């Protein structure tokens, strides 16, 4: 900021994909020792800009300089060598390698050309310890939760002595504590003079750490602002390009009437449902029109619990009842027959079929439920898909675009749309707002309220406590793979109290609900 010489500039960058203008004359200036937030809606072109910078994509126009010298990286390898270290959106690591290797591959400590495994593991542990993470670095990365993987990716980038560090939505799958660690590290690196590009949809984080903000909209540059001079609301308006009333309306949804829904019919009741080695037996009832939030730390077993409802993993003890009748759910097929839908947290490996189009991905579950012999008529497909593309503002709004070409947030919306069109009675949402921009997030939250008002039961898992508190009738708290308690979402429930329960302090596992 104070330094007049930017370490990196991108000038008038344009990038075209077939039928899509992803970037159109975008500039970016990066000074040593600053945290620079890159902001924009889903599909605004943030990730593309980063990939152009590091040479993953070539660009159609514009120029890049590093330390005043024009550069054109042929790929991430060159970029890394030149001191540009990147964590791309979505975890891009090798699941088949150990945690330690994922941190060090390509720059392993060696002696006489031979990789020194012991040394590498030791150093990996040290790097992770810096992020306050202590795990067996010899374990396969693929067996770790998404959050841990994200942390490993960050550790890898941070450990390189880079001049430019780029973090594309590193915090989307982290919980508050991890985010705190990351912020600490970022500050430390900034103070060492490293320039950091930080992409996120969490405005609080931006205002906590960023020095300057560059805003993109629809592939175009909106402007570059010092954080101090851009109030939060103005930022949002710049991002979405219009006045924002959706955000305000959200708070109206808060304060949901638990008693009313509890009086209704239970849709799904789990009794001592559990799976050894995965989730301790738990009981949970979800009523018609009820939103049950699930809170807990990373790896507390929320996802695991949700998967049991859907049969994604098979429970080995306990009972599940739908509409009061005991059922055995052998797999997703059975769950869907009982009108249960599950929107997985990991869209890339468990959600989308990248090669198929947006349309096909959206109708996939509906089609599967109807059986292959009864294809959804094309007209109806188009109509449904169109409706949800509009409702969730999926962009680009081309139903025939392969879904892997969509930006991360838009992919998430596609998964959501898939389940919404099946009109389930119980909708399980595992981190549905991950990587989604403020506008769309508000949209989704409003949708959840609307659906539950219409009688749908929702199990809502999110790392953002605010969101959970805003939407749920009650909050189930998980700790150590146990459901420790259920908290009614009344007036005196706030984030602090939930945090205390999560941390295992205040409330005990008494099974009774705090009234």
């Amino acid at each position: 900021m104070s330094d007049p010489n930017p370490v990196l500039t991108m000038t008038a960058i344009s990038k075209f994909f077939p039928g899509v203008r992803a970037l159109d004359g975008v500039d970016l200036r990066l000074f040593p020792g600053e945290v620079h937030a890159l902001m924009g809606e889903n599909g605004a072109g943030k990730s593309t800009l980063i990939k152009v910078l590091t040479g993953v994509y070539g660009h159609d126009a514009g120029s890049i300089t590093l330390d005043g010298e024009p550069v054109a990286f042929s790929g991430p390898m060159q970029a890394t060598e030149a001191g540009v270290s990147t964590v791309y959106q979505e975890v891009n690591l090798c699941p088949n390698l150990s945690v330690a290797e994922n941190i060090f591959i390509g720059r392993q400590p060696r002696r006489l050309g031979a990789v020194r495994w012991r040394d590498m593991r030791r150093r990996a542990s040290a790097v992770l310890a810096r992020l306050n993470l202590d795990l067996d670095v010899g374990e396969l990365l693929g067996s770790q939760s998404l959050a841990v993987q994200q942390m490993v990716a960050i550790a890898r980038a941070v450990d390189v002595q880079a001049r430019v560090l780029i973090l594309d939505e590193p915090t989307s799958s982290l919980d508050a504590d991890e985010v705190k660690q990351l912020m600490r590290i970022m500050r430390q690196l900034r103070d060492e003079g490293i320039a950091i590009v930080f992409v996120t949809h969490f405005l609080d984080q931006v205002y906590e750490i960023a020095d300057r903000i560059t805003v993109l909209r629809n592939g175009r540059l909106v402007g570059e602002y010092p954080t101090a001079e851009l109030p939060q609301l103005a930022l949002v308006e710049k991002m979405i390009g219009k006045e924002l009333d959706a955000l305000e309306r959200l708070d109206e949804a808060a304060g949901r009437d638990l008693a009313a829904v509890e009086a209704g019919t239970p849709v799904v009741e789990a009794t001592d449902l559990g799976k050894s080695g995965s989730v301790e037996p738990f009981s949970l009832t979800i009523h018609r029109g009820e939103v049950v939030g699930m809170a807990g730390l990373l790896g507390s077993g929320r996802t695991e619990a949700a998967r049991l409802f859907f049969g994604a993993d098979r429970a080995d003890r306990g009972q599940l009842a739908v509409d009061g009748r005991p059922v055995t759910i052998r797999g997703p097929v059975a769950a869907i027959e009982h009108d249960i839908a599950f929107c997985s947290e990991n869209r890339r490996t468990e959600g989308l079929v990248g090669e198929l189009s947006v349309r096909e991905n959206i109708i996939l579950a509906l089609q599967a439920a109807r059986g292959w012999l009864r294809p959804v008529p094309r007209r109806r497909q188009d109509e449904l898909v169109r409706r949800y593309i509009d409702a969730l503002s999926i962009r680009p709004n081309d139903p025939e675009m392969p879904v892997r070409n969509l930006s991360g947030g838009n992919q998430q919306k596609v998964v959501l749309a898939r389940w919404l069109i099946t009109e389930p009675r119980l909708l399980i949402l595992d981190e549905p707002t991950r990587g989604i921009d403020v506008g769309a997030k508000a949209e989704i939250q409003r949708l959840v309220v609307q659906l539950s008002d219409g009688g749908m039961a929702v199990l809502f898992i999110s790392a953002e406590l605010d969101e959970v508190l805003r939407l749920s009738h009650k909050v189930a708290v998980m700790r150590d793979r146990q459901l420790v308690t259920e908290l009614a979402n009344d007036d005196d429930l706030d984030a602090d109290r939930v945090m205390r329960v999560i941390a295992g302090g205040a409330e005990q596992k008494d099974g009774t609900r705090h009234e």
Partner: protein
Amino acid sequence: MSSWRTRLPAVTGHRLFWPVVVLILLLAANAIYRPSFLAVEMKNGHLYGSLVDIVRLSAPLILVALGMTLVIATGGIDLSVGSVVAVSGAVACLHISQQPDQNSLGSVLVALAMAFGVSLLLGLWNGTLVAVIGIQPIIATLILMVAGRGLAQLITSGQIITINSDPYRMIGVGHVLTLPFAIVLALAVTLLVAVLTRRTALGMIVEAVGGNAEASRLAGIRARRIKLLAYVVSAACAAVAGFMMTANVSSADGNAAGLWVELDAILAVVIGGTSLAGGRFYLGGTVVGALLIQTLTTSVYAMNIDPQTALLFKAMVVIAVCLVQAPAFRAKFRRRRAMTAGPAAPTGEQRKEQVAA
């Protein structure tokens, strides 16, 4: 990528454009070598000519490759098709050869049904190994590739079973409405598979399973059943191909029938644009691929290329097809042209990088 598409007519952008171009070039080369190559005449009320031969001879390959397309689309591979061809032909011919009246339509139909049934069982076996037990497809089907050929020879006792049955011959060399029956049959099966996959949701479901099996499972697709089905269909197609091949020469040769057909079939599928990694599949492409391969083989005979160099010739054509078909290859040349035409892209090569955002 988009710029040239607007410049050139849409046809050149079609996936099948380049394979078809190579096919036409091959035919043209033949026609130059021997102008009568393209001639199709009427002989005894049948169409007769090299072109007809090519289509007729490629019929069994088309069938096998169709089944292979589905298997590959689910992310698998089926090496056992050659053996299934041999077994189905052997069972059918053995049964017919044991009949007092080989020309009886009834016993031929029984023979076909038996052979078809056996082949379905073989397909089920493959499918079970892959989808239920979870063995890697290449090795699961390798088992039957080895053992199946033994089975075929066991059935024929290692001999070539010669039969003399007009109804059976019909499948290989008969004609309907001047067209070779084999062509009609291959066309019918192609249409059937196309209708089954594209008029229903089956095709999309198969592509979803091949594209991401776990995501498909979580979307409520019975991924295992789909995989199993693909292997059964593949075996069924191979069985019909087996009938054609054995009927073509009125004899079942447990050793030679369908030898290496799996490689040709996979090649046809790949030339047709289907990725071996699974996912999107293109039946039309597969048919073109099969025709191309048969044309290649027939060209060797028709142009009398020395058998000692025939393989070199084949290698050249295969690599040529792949190259012109590869977008990256064409992009290199376009860039060359663009460089001279106007300001070039500032960076080196644009990666066809399909990383999810």
